[in-house]
């Protein structure tokens, strides 16, 4: 008995979208490169740490926004993911601050 396979229509590659993805990859590479330059040129201190955190958030934004497609999702999902991260930021600030007060003198 003939078994009917479902008809598969393969669409041509979306060159615009693929170009955009490679552009994001390039940006991630460049930001990582900048991080390396900072790592070996600036002296250790709060300013350097702050710069690293900013650049990391930039990279995280591109990965979550473009690769994980969150930027194009509906607003309620976008904020449902983003808002809880406020707690993480607060926890980080609070604990690192507490840590500096724990150094035995």
């Amino acid at each position, binding site marked *: 008995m003939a078994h009917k396979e479902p008809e598969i229509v393969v669409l041509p590659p979306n060159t615009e979208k693929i170009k955009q*993805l490679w552009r994001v990859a390039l940006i991630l590479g460049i930001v990582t490169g900048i991080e390396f330059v900072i790592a070996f040129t600036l002296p250790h201190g709060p300013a350097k740490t702050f710069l690293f955190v900013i650049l990391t958030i930039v990279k995280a934004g591109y990965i979550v926004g473009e690769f994980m497609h969150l930027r194009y*999702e509906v607003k309620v999902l976008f904020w449902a993911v983003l808002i809880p991260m406020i707690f993480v930021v607060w926890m980080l600030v609070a*604990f690192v601050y507490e840590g500096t007060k724990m150094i035995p003198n």
Partner: protein
Amino acid sequence: MDHSTAAVTHEKGLWDGGASPMGISYGKLMMWFFLMSDAFTFSGLLITYGLVRSSNPAWDPALGEFFFSTAHWPIPEKVFDAIPFFHGVEAPLVFVGFMTFVLIMSSVTMVLAVEAGHRMDRAAVEKWMLWTIIGGLTFLSCQAWEWTHFIVGTDTPTVSEVFNVKTGVWDKINVFGANLHINQYGPPAFADFFFFITGFHGFHVFSGVLLNFLIYYNAVTGLYDRRGHYEMVEKVGLYWHFVDLVWVFVFTFFYLV
């Protein structure tokens, strides 16, 4: 009849059922929820690292050239400065930079597999999934080398004082490499966090490679063609990008700062 029922024409709202208010399928939404919980777990580990690190004395440049000691937290680039096949060559952060590059590239190939899935292009999905698996395995191999080097240690040991319970005196011993109890690089917590944070992340990469292989297998056997869509590639893709995302944070907070 003394009562009448008013005909209420109720507009069905977005949240009244029958619709997807978040605009994505159930499976993808649950993957997002899982990744949120996973993000909190990783945050817990990294924040604890921040707490312990900031509560330990940092390296004081007034002491001259940097040396390993349990008395201060090490500068990461002094610890992670080795590359395979070049014994004794100082190349700070080069190897971990290569690992970062590999993981970001595997994230790119993953998103290309997702794009191919949208077009029902089975051959392209197979190709990009295979590249993603290769990227993941490369990362895991690099990590295996990194761990081995960290555990075995450098050529010159760090002299450390250990309290001998039997004799009641502080013995000076040579410490090579690292374990959970003592290490040559810094306070015991430094190696503990290295093993726990990179280990937990590495385990995520490992399970990601298994999931990717499952997707690859299902694509090759034509399951998604029969199903009519490649959404599973997207779901596992979300997980794989998350693993990449976590590495970005581990890279910054463990290796750079």
